[in-house]
């Protein structure tokens, strides 16, 4: 079992995400994280799925995803061959802001993106290990709310989606 990133390049049609996810649920495989967005080409969506599985399983998943009529291309990568990032938001009560916390924010390269009378919101982008580390620390600062995005990723190899979209 390893962590893989699956990229799906797809037409932007209703229900396509459902068609993709049932391929995972059918085999009882959990999706660790999923993000969907428009690609740089109009009308074409890009879905990034993070999954922990054996390579054999991932190959079969990718083949079955690619078989979906409105999917243009699907492929998978190991962590080493993608550049990826996640974003995390942390809501902290203003009352807990002190010099210690300021130091932590600096050390982790986090930033304050909103300040309200009762709370501040910190933002940190990075790999899961980094955002998780800050989460553990902030639990000691009365953390009110935490949210982390799925992975956004680009492949390291020099292949663009234009070659699949003709």
């Amino acid at each position, binding site marked *: 079992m390893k962590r893989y990133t699956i990229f799906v390049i797809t037409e932007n049609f209703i*229900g396509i995400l*459902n068609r993709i996810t*049932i391929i995972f649920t059918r085999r009882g495989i959990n999706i660790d994280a999923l993000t969907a967005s428009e690609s740089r080409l109009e009308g074409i969506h890009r879905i990034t799925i993070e999954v922990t599985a054996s390579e054999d399983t991932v190959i*079969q998943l990718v*083949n079955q995803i*690619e*078989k979906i*009529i*409105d999917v*243009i291309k699907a492929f998978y990568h190991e962590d080493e061959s993608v550049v990826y990032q996640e974003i995390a938001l942390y809501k902290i009560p203003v009352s807990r802001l002190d010099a210690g916390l300021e130091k932590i924010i600096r050390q982790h390269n986090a930033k304050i993106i909103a300040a309200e009378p009762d709370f501040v919101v910190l933002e940190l982008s990075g790999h899961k290990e980094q955002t998780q580390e800050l989460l553990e620390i902030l639990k000691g600062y009365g953390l009110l709310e935490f949210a982390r995005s799925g992975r956004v990723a680009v492949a390291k190899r020099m292949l663009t989606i234009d070659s699949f979209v003709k």
Partner: protein
Amino acid sequence: MKDSMIRGADIVVRSLIAENAEIIFGYPGGAIMPVYDALHDYHDQLRHVLTRHEQGAIHAAQGYARVSGKVGVCIATSGPGATNLITGLADAQIDSTPLVCITGQVASHLLGTDAFQETDVVGISMPGTKWNIQVRRVEDIAPAIAKGFYIAKSGRPGPVLIDITKDAQTNFGDFNYEPCLGFRSYRTHIPIEKSAIQEAAFLINMAKRPYVLFGQGVVLGGAETELKAFLEKSGIPAACTLLGSGALSEDHPNYVGKLGMHGNYAPNMLTNQCDILIAVGMRFDDRVTGDLKRYAKQAKVIHLELDPAEINKNVKCEVAVLGSCKDSLALLTAAVNKNTYPDWMAKFKELSDQEKATVIDPDLTPTKPGLTMGEVIHQVNKYKADDAILVTDVGQHQMISWRYFNYKKPRTQVTSGGLGTMGFALPAALGAQMYDFSRQVICVVGDGGIQMTIQELGTIMQTKAPVKIVLLNNNFLGMVRQWQQMFFDKRYSFTELDNPDFIKIAEAYNIQAQKVSVRDDLQEAIEDMLIHDGPYFLEVVVEKEDNVFPMIATGCSVEEVRLS
């Protein structure tokens, strides 16, 4: 409103006509009523068959599609009408049958409000369709139907569902039908890689004991001639899967029998002795392979397959030849040496003789008093036409019919293979017969399965489709009973049936019927049935507790195939 504008419902019907649909199977209801109203104007161009249940409609469309090679069409209303199609969709999906199913849907302003007869049929049918779509605007109807037909019949065929809201059916729009010729996310033609052909030919030319397994892909790809040419040049023995039957005549010298759980002895045993295994248009179903860990481990596998998702899914292959087997077989035939394998062929013969003595002879020419299912099929073989179509349900009678029916022509085998849908046969036989009244359609069913869709006798009565129904009655759910006997200490839990008088039922539907319970009456009854002009119902009372052999029990290897 322009004069040229027509109702969405008329667009539905005219689109079907534009796709050369000749016949559709369906059942009306509230949300599809505008389409039924439109059908009234076109019944000289598009025939509609009213089944007695939506499941009957979709199985009939499947039977029609399997025999004709065309897209089967069925229509149903929203809600329960649509959900009654689900079994047929799943069946067509797993058996790669091209279908276009059109369902009515509540008006678009009611979607998501739990309106009367509203169900999320696009959501429900998603795993059981190759493609589905909901159409909410009149201008999207024709393009959706065009795309649906294209998807259903191209590539690896499959079922498509198009859900059309009632307001889209009643609104007016222009009709300029443009057939779908392809689109960017869906590629149907895979050019054959020459290097794969070379690698495959190299392995085959070196082989001492090569072996071909062929499946329905040969039929779907229309590659029967190419398969025959390949086998005749290469000299390789060939066995078929359940749905591959008919792709090669059983009289062909290279034909060695059937694969799988209730296939023939030699083809299963020798799977584990070949050195090169050439799989053509088949997907290594678990009912074919038995225990995968002990399946053909000694062999190098060459897989000729159209669907990339089937490569290495169940059995890892040495060489994958992607693309239509019609193309790849032709190229491979050119690349392989002319050869014969007399010693290897003799092995098949030797094991086949064992099966004949222990299983086949007692099945076909029994000496005990009770009738066997095998002897019924044996008699059918004597009188049937070469191109007779055999439609079967699911269970013991299905396996026995498959084992003993003499398949000679392509598209003569109609059965629920992958899904194993009891209740499939009667409506599928009706659909097969509706394609061509001049063909013999023989529908073999069990007493369990026929009662799942017995209402379709009404459709047979109304259409006068001359289906020959052979009911093999053992007053048991026979296959389950066999498993209970073999693996559950003979604890016959809820498998014995108190049956109705089937002859009275058939006669109530105005179908000529006859019941046979002794051997002396069998031959004449089958002759009578096959020469009868019109539908016929023959009930044969067979031995209650006969078993189907050979058998590879679940979890066993192909070489553990049992003869008793």
